[in-house]
C-alpha cells in the first residue's frame, strides 16, 4: 500500500490511510455530510468523541475510483483504523451499537448509546483532508 506508483491520487489516498490512525472517506464533510450513510457514520464517531480525519470524495470522481481500487470496497463511506478498512456505514453502525467500535477506537462507549445520533454541525466546513488529531 505504501509503494509508489505513477498514480499520484492513489498514492495520496494510500498515504493518508497509513498516516492517520482513524480516517473516514465520505460524501461531504463531517459538518455537512452529503449522504445519509456518511452522516450516520460521522454521527457514530462523534458520539464516541473519537478524533478522526475525514476526506470528501465528491470533489473528484477519481478519489472514489482509486479508493475502491485500494480497499476492494465498492461503497462510500469507508472507515479505516490503523490502516485497515473497518467497514462502511452498516458495519460501523453495527459495531457502534455493540460497543466494538469504541473498542477498536480505544475510547469509552457512552452510556445509553443504542443508536447513532445524527451528525451535529460543529465547525465551519473544511476543504479537503481534515485532521482533527490536533
Amino acid at each position, binding site marked *: 500500500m505504501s509503494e509508489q506508483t505513477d498514480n499520484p491520487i492513489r498514492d495520496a489516498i494510500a498515504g493518508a490511510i497509513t498516516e492517520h490512525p482513524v480516517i473516514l472517506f465520505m460524501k461531504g464533510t463531517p459538518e455537512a455530510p452529503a449522504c445519509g*450513510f456518511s452522516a450516520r457514520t460521522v454521527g457514530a464517531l462523534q458520539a464516541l468523541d473519537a478524533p478522526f480525519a475525514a476526506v470528501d470524495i465528491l470533489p473528484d470522481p477519481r478519489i472514489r475510483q482509486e479508493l475502491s481500487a485500494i480497499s*476492494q470496497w*465498492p*461503497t462510500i463511506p469507508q472507515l479505516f483504523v490503523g490502516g485497515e478498512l473497518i*467497514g462502511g456505514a452498516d458495519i460501523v453502525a453495527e*459495531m457502534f451499537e455493540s460497543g466494538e467500535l469504541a473498542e477498536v477506537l480505544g475510547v469509552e462507549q457512552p452510556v445509553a448509546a443504542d443508536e447513532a445520533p445524527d451528525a451535529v454541525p460543529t465547525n465551519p466546513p473544511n476543504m479537503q483532508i481534515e485532521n482533527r488529531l490536533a
Partner: protein
Amino acid sequence: MPSTDEIRHRIEAALPGSTAEVEDWGGGDHLRATVVAPQFEGLSRIAQHRLVYDIFGDEIGGPIHALSLKTSTPS
C-alpha cells in the same frame, strides 16, 4: 435497475444455501439486504459484505446506488 426480487435471487444463487431478504429503502435504488449464509461462517463482517458486493461488481454505485447489508450465519 434490478428489482428487489432479482437481487434476492442473485444472492441466493451465488451463495447456495443462503436466504436473502431485500427491501427498497427509497427511490428503488437504495436497497437493504439481510443475508443469512453458511458461507459467512468464520469470516469477518468485511469479508461477509465483500462476498455479497462481489456478486454485483460494478453495478454497486451504478444501477444499484446503494446496497445496505446485514449479514449473519445460520445458527
